[in-house]
């Protein structure tokens, strides 16, 4: 079987298209590269949506934490402590065991039956956990940056007659993002790496549709040889991490475009400042 045929059969296997059965004997390098690459679809799906939605949630949380309302502040603090103080792995298990307790027949709301089973699937349940998790970590970063917005910037905004929403959108928010961006880049990379945990925690890989590490561990288990499959997965992750750093670097340059010399390359310090 040629390698092109393998790619056609297994290239989209992780989302259920192509060959139904995974290869069982005579594993070729091409099969391993193809299937592990196919699993990256899930890693990218989780990372992109968790980061997109988590970003806005985190901004809200950071504002609630910095705000004057004691109820909102307390709630934001509690949320951040809960998700930053406990392991993501346990959060996955906890969320899954809570979601399976929902009634299978659905919940009745105003005569409508809302289905619940989709929540126990990885694409929804695990994404929910990842969104909340990254929101908590990013909120901590954004809050720190919000507190570091220079006093003079806000005075200048006041002098221009800006207030409330306008002042936030035009002055505070861009500065907050600019200051938070290096740390936020680290968080994005960490979240991307954390997506590999999904199918090793409680969430089952429905019809063996898993992420790249799921397939890598499948091959390592079947061939009893960890020296091929895991380096392939590692190689994919290195390339994508570099791409992510590049992408965040472009945003960083845009955020700092009014400050000559400030938009130097982000120094990536993995996970150390979570």
């Amino acid at each position, binding site marked *: 079987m040629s390698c092109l045929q393998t790619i056609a059969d297994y290239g989209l296997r992780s989302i259920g298209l192509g060959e139904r059965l995974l290869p069982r004997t005579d594993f070729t390098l091409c099969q391993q590269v193809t299937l592990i690459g196919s699993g990256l679809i899930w890693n990218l799906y989780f990372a992109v949506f968790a980061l997109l939605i988590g970003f806005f949630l985190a901004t809200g949380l950071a504002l609630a934490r910095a705000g004057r309302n004691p109820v909102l502040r307390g709630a934001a603090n509690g949320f951040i402590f809960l998700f930053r103080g406990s*392991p993501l792995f346990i959060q996955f298990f906890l969320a899954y065991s809570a979601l399976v307790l929902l009634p299978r027949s659905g919940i009745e709301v105003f005569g409508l039956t809302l289905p619940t089973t989709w929540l126990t699937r990885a694409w929804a349940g695990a994404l929910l956990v990842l969104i909340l998790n990254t929101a908590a970590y990013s909120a901590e970063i954004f809050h720190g940056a919000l507190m570091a917005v220079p006093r003079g910037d806000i005075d200048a905004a006041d002098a221009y007659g800006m207030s409330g929403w306008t002042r936030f959108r035009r002055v505070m928010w861009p500065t907050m993002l600019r200051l938070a961006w290096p740390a936020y880049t680290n968080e994005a990379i960490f979240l991307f790496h954390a997506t590999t945990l999904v199918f090793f925690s409680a969430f089952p890989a429905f019809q063996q549709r898993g992420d790249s590490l799921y397939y890598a561990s499948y091959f390592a288990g079947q061939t009893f040889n960890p020296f091929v499959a895991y380096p392939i997965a590692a190689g994919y*992750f290195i390339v994508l991490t570099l791409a992510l750093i590049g992408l965040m670097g472009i945003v960083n340059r845009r955020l700092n475009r009014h400050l000559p010399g400030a938009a130097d390359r982000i120094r990536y310090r993995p996970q150390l400042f979570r």
Partner: protein
Amino acid sequence: MFSYCADPSLLQGFQWMSCYLTSGTHLLFYASFGMVLLLLAVTAPIALAFGYGGAMACRSPIGPLRWVGKTYTGMVRGVPDIVFFLFVPIALDQGLEWLRHQALCDSDAPVRQGNDFVVCAAAKLPLSDSPAWVHDTYALILAVIAFATVFGAFAANVLYGAMQAVPREQLETAEAYGMSARQVTRRVLVPQMWIYALPGLSNLWLILIKATPLLFLLGIEDIVYWARELGGAKTSAFSYPHPDWRLYYFLVILVFYLLMTWISERVLGRLTARLSAGQATLAGEAQRKAATA
């Protein structure tokens, strides 16, 4: 545990609960919390030693040693740590068995035959006739090495940064006093780097705490394993039948980790204050001002 626990099917309410929570498997569940603490206590110093070695290798004037150090500290940047947790124990196990195969077996057969990894009985690790606790301990040691490898690489990043942060003038002064490179390192560089390393190491400690449930991935009977075992729905065939209680077990684990984090943050805060005393940093400056005021 208690005398009235002899026949669980007759028990009600509080008595049932007290017997249920002190059953043999529950005692193993409680003991596995101790194992998490043990893992932390063993792994942290080893990881720190790996990190120190890595950071020193990065600063080495010898080219190849420096490249090894740079590769080691760089490898955790692009690759998820879970890959290492899955890879290191099995790779190490096979590597050791291969070495023993070369030394102890007199067959010329290759160790990789198709999809199997075959070594002779004498080369097995641990030997197949050794008791169960040897197998458990061996698995735990491999897990500790996997954790120490990953966190050692993180720690090397932190310590390398801290060594670079020690003011250059301090080292030059020491050199001017005629100290050798070794003396400069031991008497000036290492004592001063800790305050610069502390924020990074504190963070690393918190990340290490939160990585401990990954023991479950390595097939070790840890708290996650027991929570799944004990919490799953039990039919009346069991002594203590109950519906799906996994949620409550994982809530207990969650509270355990929140407590660990909370206590650690308190302790590390105090330690930072202690180490800042008399240092040429902003925190040290603030302490001096507070003392004179």
